[in-house]
């Protein structure tokens, strides 16, 4: 194997981990959004369903993000340090979201004394669930638009630390992420719900979120034309990316039709596939750059020995991890 192949493999693993985070933790965040928007005669039952669905799995789901961070600084240290400098502000805010989401959720579950306190924790939990994916999307948008360049000495504060991410494109991608996560969560919840009326609640919500997804997608595309030349090229111009985009569209339509026809499992599969395609489509669009405009996967890679050892560790880790994860989901999600 050459170093290029090893670097490519590891970039692929990072993307898989990100994909895992989006499909699993993304739905937990989406659940928080529905907690905020819980309404109607079954409001309390909706919240209870969400809490039960998230409870046993959210910490395991959260570790995917840690895997992304660790692999990034081990295998592509230059990318990690540059992102951490240029996106210091949104990343720090995202950390606040992560801390408040996790702790408020657990405080709410265990603080059984006062209704008032519980409601306050619930509110904190759901607002943090909204904020965190939004900032995640903003960071991805900043990276995709190629604005997280090398830190130039003496640049002023706004140019160096604000304008990389405060763009219409990054903000719309933030919005898109929130809506997608909410869509995904509502679909998962149709399966987890006991009872037709509760299923219907989440079906309606999923359909509404699905509609919003299209609006947010169009907004993201339009702003990409202005802010993200590389994306524009990759999204519209490259033959590599087009099949993925077609697939994304097909899965999106399938998910909505399946929801309409109450084919819950098909809807879940299609929605998960749709989100995965968006991630891989983004990757394909900016390939071979890991951090546009200038850092390619090959250039940013750590020395070969590090890559090899990390791959070995991953194989070892996966051998423990996947059976354990399967067991977790079999115990709690076998429906």
């Amino acid at each position, binding site marked *: 194997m050459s170093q290029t192949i090893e670097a490519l493999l590891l970039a692929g693993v990072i993307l898989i981990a990100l994909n895992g985070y989006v499909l699993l933790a993304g739905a937990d965040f989406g659940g928080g959004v529905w907690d905020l928007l819980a309404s109607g005669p079954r409001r309390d039952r909706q919240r209870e369903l969400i809490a039960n669905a998230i409870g046993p799995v959210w910490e395991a789901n*959260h570790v995917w993000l840690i895997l992304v961070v660790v692999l990034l600084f081990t295998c592509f*240290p230059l990318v990690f340090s540059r992102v951490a400098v240029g996106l210091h502000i949104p990343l*720090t805010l995202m950390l606040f979201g992560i801390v408040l989401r996790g702790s408020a959720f657990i405080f709410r579950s*265990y603080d059984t004394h006062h209704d008032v306190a519980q409601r306050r924790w619930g509110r904190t939990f759901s607002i943090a669930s909204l904020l965190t994916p939004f900032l995640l999307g903003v960071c991805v948008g900043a990276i995709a638009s190629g604005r997280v360049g090398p830190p130039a000495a003496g640049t002023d504060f706004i140019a160096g630390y604000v304008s990389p991410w405060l763009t219409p494109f990054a903000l719309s991608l933030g919005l898109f992420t929130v809506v997608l996560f909410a869509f995904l969560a509502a679909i998962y919840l149709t399966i987890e719900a006991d009872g037709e009326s509760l299923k219907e609640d989440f079906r309606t919500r999923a359909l509404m979120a699905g509609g919003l997804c299209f609006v947010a997608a169009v907004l993201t595309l339009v702003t990409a034309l202005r802010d993200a030349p590389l994306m524009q090229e990759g999204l519209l111009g490259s033959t590599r990316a087009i099949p993925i985009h077609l697939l994304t569209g097909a899965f999106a339509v399938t998910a909505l039709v399946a929801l309409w026809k109450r084919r819950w499992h098909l809807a879940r599969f299609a929605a998960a596939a749709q989100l995965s395609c968006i991630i891989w489509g983004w990757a394909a669009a900016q390939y071979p750059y890991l951090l546009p405009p200038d850092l390619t996967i090959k250039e940013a890679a750590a020395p070969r020995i590090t890559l090899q050892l990390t791959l070995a560790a991953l194989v070892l880790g996966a051998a423990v991890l996947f059976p354990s994860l399967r067991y*977790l989901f079999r115990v709690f999600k076998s429906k």
Partner: protein
Amino acid sequence: MSDLLAARSQMAISLAFHIIFAVVGIGMPLLMVLAEWRWRATRDPVYLELARRWAKGTAILFAVGAVSGTVLSFELGLLWPRFMEMAGPIIGMPFSLEGFAFFTEAIFLGIYLYGWEKIPPKAHIGAGILVALSGVLSGIFVVIANAWMNTPTGFRAISGQLTELDPIRAMLNPAAFQQTLHMTLAAYAATGLAVSAVHAVFLFGDPMNAFHRRALQIGLMVGTPAALLQPVSGDISARNVAEYQPAKLAAMESVFETRREAPLLIGGLPDIDRREVRFGIEIPYGLSLLAYHDPHAEVKGLDQVPREDWPHVTIVHLAFQIMVGLGSYMALVALWVAITALRRREVSQNRALLKAIILAGPMGFLAIEAGWVVTEVGRQPWIISGVLRTAEAVTPMPGLVVPFTLITLLYLFLGTIVAWMLYSQIIRSPVTRDWSRSYTPGPKVEVKG
């Protein structure tokens, strides 16, 4: 406040906060598993109640540990991008392995907490054992990374770049074994004694209570051996520091001048300008003996280190005195417990001993904070000993005092909530009547779970 100072303070606050939860994440699963094991062996429902309650407390603390740990992994880049650029490829290895340990820990904790009714008993206790093991492992891996910062090996530094990396040798750096051993023991000593202290408080007013007696017994089972071994392990650490980090040892003991037959200094306040220590007690030959096991050995002093490369002597010295003082007290209490148990007396009925245990309750955690101050402040001005200076590693981002202030406020707030929650949810006597008497289990009752 300069940006560098703000960054260092933010790192210190975040780590000092996280370590409390990390330590509980290492220690509590063992207590939980022991309680469940006793329950399965005896069918005494008190043990089941204990296991469940401890699991509940662990769930709260684990969640805060997980989120504060996430903050740290980002902060390594947010605050020290130049450090991670340089060190990522070489210490990424233990961090990656740690990542898998976290995964295993989080997965099986979920199964343990929510699976009482869902999986067979063997699988349940098995999940608990896996949580305990992976907790220890994640602690070990991250401390290995820190040991590398103290005694970096496995590379060649050429004009600010590390080349010829050998991540395996980096993991086997000279401080790795000493630090991981000391930290793991510290986690067990601190949690074991803290739990014992909580239940000792209850036993003080309600000496026959079966619930608290059994809890005390398990807490001491974990805390006592660890607290007894800790001074031994600390001595191993100190000898390692003397060999590989002489500036740190000199600061710990305020040795301003290199000398043979160096005395051990207890207490005292270093006066850095006059290069002497006031109010200390000197034990002749003590330091040479402890650091090199030879009363005549030469101990390197700060005179061998350029003045601008000195760590903050007063802080390191005081922190070290605090740790050793607390550690000695904890070891003495542990010895007392061990003797009482060997003479087949009930610890719970010895009021003087209960008082001593209560006093030791918070000490493990304080000693851990103090020990980390020794290690980290003692390494200054280096972030990687002898290779990269902390000042060179800090992010160019201005205004770091803002995130520092916000993080501090957030953690103060969370800390208060967690303390209150543990107090009101976990640390209460159960109201089961018969447990308040000297309780002997009646005919075996099958409890579902």
